[in-house]
């Protein structure tokens, strides 16, 4: 396969995988917190928080990318402030991670929240009577009983991040080796004479990654981590 894909193809694939995985890993703790808040707490402004969180799902991705640029760009106040500490996101691969994380965040929170909602609250009450405070109840009851939903959310968010195009190109542009992810590479090859073989190659790779992600989700949900399901059948 090394010969089949060009070095640029490999670069784009590796970058997309890195961006996809990192965006999920970095947003997961925040998503867990958000999902828990939305599932368990009633607070003023909750509807607004929920609406803001789902915005990336509804807005055209280019607009989300532009919003990120307006917020974290080199000339934006927050971007300038972070720049003083050497933290720059605009036109960097780290910015692609931010864009992918923002785009995948609603899917991640939504899946985890549904998983939290489906945990029997009476089990949490039982844990409470056994002396477990909030954090221990979350870590030992809510979280393990939500693992399938969390795994599904991670796969969904990864898939969304892996395929991210609009927000990424608006925020970090198309810089070979830095921000040219797989979808951006495909888009560029589409606009280059004689680029079709490359488009076909990378599209096939994208299909392969999508199938691998979906298969791993199925394996996680039904596999070793939940071997106890064989006991359920008894």
């Amino acid at each position, binding site marked *: 396969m090394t010969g089949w894909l060009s070095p640029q193809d490999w670069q784009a694939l590796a970058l997309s995988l890195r961006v996809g995985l990192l965006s999920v890993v970095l947003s997961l703790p925040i998503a867990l917190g958000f999902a828990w808040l939305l599932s368990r707490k009633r607070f003023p402004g909750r509807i607004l928080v929920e609406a803001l969180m789902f915005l990336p799902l509804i807005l055209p991705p280019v607009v989300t990318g532009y919003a990120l640029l307006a917020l974290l760009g080199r000339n934006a106040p927050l971007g300038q402030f972070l720049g003083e500490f050497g933290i720059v996101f605009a036109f960097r691969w780290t910015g692609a991670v931010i864009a992918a994380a923002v785009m995948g965040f609603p899917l991640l929170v939504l899946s985890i929240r549904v998983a939290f909602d489906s945990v029997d609250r*009476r089990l949490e*009450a039982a*844990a*409470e*009577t*056994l002396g477990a405070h909030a954090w221990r109840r979350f870590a030992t009851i809510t979280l393990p009983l939500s693992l399938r939903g969390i795994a599904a959310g991670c796969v969904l968010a990864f898939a969304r991040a892996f395929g991210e195009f609009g927000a990424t190109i608006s925020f970090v542009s198309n810089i070979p080796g830095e921000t040219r992810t797989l979808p951006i590479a495909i888009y560029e090859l589409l606009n280059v004479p004689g680029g079709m073989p490359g488009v076909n190659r990378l599209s096939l790779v994208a299909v392969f990654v999508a199938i691998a992600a979906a298969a791993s989700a199925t394996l996680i949900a039904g596999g070793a981590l939940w071997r106890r399901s064989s*006991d359920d059948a*008894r």
Partner: protein
Amino acid sequence: MIELAMRHAFTDLMLDVGFRADVRTLALFGDSGAGKTSVLNAIAGLLTPQAGRIVLDERVLFDSAAGIDVAVAERRVGYVFQDGRLFPHLDVRANLLYGARSRSNGAGVDFDAVVALLELVPLLARAPSSLSGGERQRVAIGRALLAQPRALLLDEPLTGLHFEARRQVLDYLRRLKRELGVFTVLVTHHADEVAALADEVVLLAGGQVAGQLPRDEFVAARTATGLLQAV
């Protein structure tokens, strides 16, 4: 020793209950909807009464006038729910150890003693979903006991069990009472359970206390009216 006074308005019931008892096992007896489980929930802290005061062994758990409301996790009660509520993702051993506290000053019970008393050894590696109803309740009782509770709260622990399992769990509860002597509040609507386990009975009806009497008087009254046989 327990001292309880509470008022709480539900949409379909006005709960206004007060009693004081200094026995080993107290039964709250009454029909469904009399408010028995709500009283138990208030003792555990799972229900916050609109007004009242709950004192367990001279420790104030709740006092609306003084603004005291001890957190559920701090109340040190062992609650055995009607449906067991074992944690499905943990095996029996992990369930038993979930709330386990080490004994202090030799008081309370240890793991081996509880496992032996309730004959749980063959079940330790099993998943809750593979247990029968009676086994599940025995594990739930063990789990509650290992939290070294100041009071064991039993909410209709035999409901839903078939005849043999019911008799079996009842035997275990008798042994428990004899050998461990943990203060217990038993909620039931079965007079034979009161007769088998309780020292004193609080009768609840329509959210109010209809009477409080020693076990023997309860049994005598029930037997005389033909409501209780084969005690």
